[in-house]
């Protein structure tokens, strides 16, 4: 439907007053702003020398958490691999050793391709036992594609590194692993 003439609202620029016509007050005003910024505190981070302060919920490199006994918390339930939109997690489950009480399975291998990963954090959301977490490690580099495929040992070493460095403290302290670890009823 075309716009009727009566629906058009005509707007005109406001009339300039005496001081506006002189231009100078407005320019002095503008100069005050720019000169103020000239001497204000700078916000640039000098990156290699000055590390950024990242919030705890930053989604960087993954880690596999250890429980109190230093064993991998993961119970190989495949929830993270299922939730992963990039299909970057590959788990091979095995029956857990007999002395690992309170759980049925553990991951024999746990391989995560850091190059396929889109760092969405869905694995962390999906994990029922808080085993996989994203840390604030952001400067991940490598010389080959193979190097960027992290296995279980590497992911556990990320846990050791980040807890030791204090950047990502252990966030969960649950003793029991939760219902996902228990054998199916019946």
């Amino acid at each position, binding site marked *: 439907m075309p716009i*009727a*003439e*009566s*629906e*058009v*609202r*005509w707007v*005109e*620029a406001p*009339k*300039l007053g*005496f*001081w506006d*016509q*002189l231009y*100078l007050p407005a*320019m002095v005003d*503008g*100069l005050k*702003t*720019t*000169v103020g*910024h*000239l*001497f*204000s*505190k*700078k*916000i*640039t981070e*000098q990156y290699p020398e000055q590390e950024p302060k990242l919030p705890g919920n930053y989604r960087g490199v993954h880690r596999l958490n250890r429980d109190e006994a230093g064993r991998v918390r993961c119970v190989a339930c495949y929830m993270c691999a299922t939730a992963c939109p990039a299909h970057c997690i590959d788990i091979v489950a095995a029956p857990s050793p007999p002395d690992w009480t309170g759980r049925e399975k553990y991951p024999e291998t746990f391989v995560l391709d850091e190059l396929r990963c889109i760092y969405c954090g869905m694995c962390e959301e999906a994990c029922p036992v808080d085993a996989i977490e994203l840390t604030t490690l952001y400067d991940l580099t490598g010389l080959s594609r193979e190097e960027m495929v992290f296995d279980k040992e590497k992911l556990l070493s990320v846990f050791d590194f980040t807890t030791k460095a204090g950047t990502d403290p252990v966030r969960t302290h649950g003793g029991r692993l939760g219902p996902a670890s228990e054998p199916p009823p019946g």
Partner: protein
Amino acid sequence: MPSFEPGYLAIVIVALMGGVLGVVGYLTLAERKVSAWIQDRLGPNRVGPGGLLQPLADGGKFFLKEEVIPKHVDRVFYLLAPAVAVITALLAIAVVPFGSTVAPPAPQATIDAFESSQAAYRSHFSFVLAPGVDIGILYVFALGSLAVYGVILAGWSANSKYSLIGALRSSAQIISYEIPLGMSVLGVFLIVGSLNLETIAGWQGSHRYWLVLVQPLAFLLFLVSAYAEGSRLPFDLPEAEQELVGGYHTEYSSMKLGFMLMAEYVHLVTAGLIVSILFFGGWSLFGLESIFDRVPVLAAIFKLIILVAKMLIYCAFALVVRWTIPRFRFDQLMSIAWKAMIPLALANLVCVMIVKQYGWPLIWLAFASVGLLAAAGLWHGSVTMPRRKVARPPVATGGLATSRLTGV
């Protein structure tokens, strides 16, 4: 025109040109630093201590870049344009007195008197590339007009729409702003009675006050025109990046682009020197400049420092203004020059003529300047807005649609 020792002149030329080019190099760093600081950033700080070697890195980069000459260009003019731009920009500095100059002698009645006065002038230490050029500022303006050839040749020969539009804008802008640029300083020449920059600086030195006090409006007009002539930011339409890619130097690469950019900074330096000499007393500083007069070399260096400091303040102001005032529209650009600045410059000139004619004290000119500016502000016709009447349709009342749209 007195003749001078060629060897001595060669030393002065090398020293001053080297100095000017050094200032130009560090102006590029200052531009980037000031831009960064105004935007709360740090700016380039990795090359050398605090980024101080950045100009060297930039220059080296310009020389080492691949030099692309597009096939569709007019090669002769394409190669000529950067040279014209840089040469005209650098030549203008020749008449600037850098300090320790005495005013050249006035015309004498007899040839003997002329010769002796010239000899006396020659015996002084003159820190200027081309001493005793009586047309002084006219020479600078003439070279400023020639500088537009660099831009037009670049824009035309590049055979590209962006370059051509940039060059057309530039020629229109520079030709328009040359009029207020020249007209605003006519009052200064009437007051001093000479076009020679050495004489103008000397006049202010001996009168112990600066001409900006009696010609503030002329200074304002000259400042704005000088920014427009140098295509500094409120008036950088010839190279408006958002519209024209790079303007007239779109098709240039490597050191040819470097020359184009360098010419702009040389214009800034020249304008700074001219403003300092015309309106801020050149190397005079309320009598302080003569404390080293016993030692001619020290005095020359001290006066040079005063003049360069004034020039640098001007450049710093230009850098800050760049981030303060947004770019004008092209019709606004033309309106300001033709509807506001040229009439104001003319009126200012008439005021100077009246005051000189009746021998009134020069301070009246300051009041006249303020009055003229206020009168321009009161002038009803708006300068920056085009005179376009909006045809208003008859207002419909009570309609549902109207009330919805107007929110009544």
